[in-house]
């Protein structure tokens, strides 16, 4: 992080609270920042609020979803835009051009009756203002860049003629076509085969460097974050419970939930063993608990854990370093 530019946040989320349905709070007090060119992993089980968090950033909350309070600022300095409560006009200038997203099921985001080329061209012509010929040339460039061999042939193919991995590459080509600053990948590799997943993750890393993208990688798989992200945010039941540089968080997890997740993650060990599990179930969305939301499943839970709200507190420099935080009372207790 040598230059001033890189240190500036590309995305700053502060005190975000999102509720769904009948005022059920599903995301609580979520704060994080992503710097330019940085890759951040957002990890959690299904129902942890990770998808609602990134959908808030995209302005794509479900109809019943609502941002109760908090702020989401994209960019910094003169380019900064507040996205909470933004109007349609603002979103039109931001979505696709400054923030882009890739989701799990690529086939459902493409029109089955139009060729791949048509659909990439369309974005470049309508949003990018390119002419027919320029758009076509740029499309072929983009398709090649995302690792599709014979881009000219792929250009004329329909979605059903491509595999899931190829479709995801097309979606990524569309996502980066307007040179966004931030790319959100929400479970973008979950449905893919192991080999293809590794290829797509490598592609995202390469694009991050060549396009100076900031990457927010949302996944339930800690192993994916380990290989891809510089920093990690661990979410549980709507809250960030631990954050920090990936190697430090995974090397020395401070929150019991992160420790439990490490136990169940793929450890690259091919030997026979009893597989770890996390006992119990996460609380239902919106369930109000007096203290730590992981306490009912935590092996270290004590009376102080449920006495009152637990803040996300910095972790001592001794056991971590700058930028580490954990939402656990044990952090504050000197060892």
């Amino acid at each position, binding site marked *: 992080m040598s230059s001033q530019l890189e240190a500036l946040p590309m995305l700053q989320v502060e005190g975000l609270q999102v509720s769904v349905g009948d005022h059920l709070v599903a995301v609580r007090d979520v704060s994080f920042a992503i710097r330019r060119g940085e890759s951040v992993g957002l990890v959690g089980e299904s129902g942890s609020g990770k998808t609602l968090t990134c959908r808030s950033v995209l302005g794509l909350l479900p109809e019943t979803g609502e941002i109760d309070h908090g702020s989401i600022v994209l960019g910094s300095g003169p380019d900064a835009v507040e996205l909470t409560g933004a109007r349609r006009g603002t979103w039109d200038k931001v979505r696709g051009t400054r923030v882009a997203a890739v989701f799990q099921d690529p086939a459902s985001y493409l029109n089955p009756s139009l060729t791949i080329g048509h659909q990439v061209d369309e974005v470049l012509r309508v949003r990018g203002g390119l002419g027919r010929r320029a758009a076509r040339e740029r499309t072929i460039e983009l398709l090649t860049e995302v690792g599709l061999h014979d881009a000219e042939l792929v250009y004329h193919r329909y979605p059903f003629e491509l595999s899931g991995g190829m479709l995801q590459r097309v979606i990524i080509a569309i996502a980066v076509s307007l040179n966004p600053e931030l790319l959100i990948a929400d479970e973008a590799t979950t449905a893919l085969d192991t080999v293809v997943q590794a290829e797509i993750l490598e592609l995202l890393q390469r694009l991050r460097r060549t396009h100076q993208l900031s990457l927010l990688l949302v996944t339930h798989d800690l192993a994916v974050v380990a290989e891809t992200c510089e920093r990690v945010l661990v979410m549980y039941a709507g809250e960030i419970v631990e954050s920090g540089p990936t190697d430090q968080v995974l090397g020395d997890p401070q929150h019991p939930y992160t420790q439990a997740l490490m136990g169940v993650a*793929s450890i690259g060990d091919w*030997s026979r063993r009893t597989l770890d599990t996390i006992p119990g179930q996460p609380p239902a969305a919106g369930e109000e608990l007096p203290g730590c939301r992981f306490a009912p499943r935590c092996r270290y839970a004590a009376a102080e854990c449920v006495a009152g709200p637990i803040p996300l507190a910095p972790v001592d420099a001794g056991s971590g370093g700058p930028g580490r935080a954990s939402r656990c009372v044990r952090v504050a207790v000197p060892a």
Partner: protein
Amino acid sequence: MTTPTTTPLLKVTDLSVSYARPKKGTHLGTGAALHGASLEVRRGEIVGIVGETGSGKTTLARATVGLVTPAAGTIEFEGADLGALRGRALREFRRRGQVQLVFQDPLRSLDPDLTVARLVGEPLDIAGGLSSRERSARIDEALREVGLDPGEVRGRRPRQLSGGQRQRVSLARAIVTRPALLFCDEPVSALDVSNRNLVLNLLDRLRRDLDLAVVVIAHDLSSLAGIADRVAVFYRSRLVEQGPTRDVLERPAHPYTALLTASAPSVERHHEIRPADVRLDAEPTEDRAGWTAQGGCVFAARCRFAHDACRVQPDLVPLDPPTREAACYVAGEWAAHLKTNLTQQEIAS
């Protein structure tokens, strides 16, 4: 652990399945979903099956339970040839429920309108011959076996259960007929990691408690490695490698297995081989996809180590030790070329 002297419970020999005749001039290949696959499973053994989408894993499961008719090859169960069963004998075999299939997504495979008790009891109704008291007792027994409290879940419907509970109901439904073989098609793919491990541990316990033979199709290599005794790797309708799980995953013999293990994400990197080491970087100059269509090795188009011999599909042959088999001319040998960075020509010569 298995004793190799026992005769296999399931013996699949040279099984081929074809879904459709391909149209002339299309590049869809021969239409074969499974090509000469052989697999043996013994009682009390867990065999894992890995491979990409469309590699024939599910077809093998479907053929074994009799949902598709093989084009060639035999399936023997307890020494009897299933392909020879007709009419009454076949219906009788199915009714006994000795082979059960568990599907990936319990929300889709369980009738949403039925209670857990009805769902689990259904296979017993088909088998018939039980009094309602015996039936009820068997349902409770199956539910307890999968770690569910019958009193609590009997009256619930699938929607009212968590993902892990639903998959356990699927398992209870499968074991209620006291089967000898369980075929699980991606049983944990739809679950969170924690529930995933819970269900896999459960399978591990069931095979011990009930002396079941279990075949698990999965794509999460790490979890599978925790419970499977042996693993079979499929690629494009062919069985390309099989052997004891840890051996195969730690020292893969087939280049595809190597690519698979190297690609598996991990919180700590133990693998020595990286995906880029075994991946074909540039498009091959020859039309290697054409080789496959003309009877060449199925992996030729993506293989870094393909050479002229690979124009003919290699057979699955025993390696050293003979518990392992692979279908590759340079099985295991290619690893020696990794660090020296030889060119294609040097490997070929």
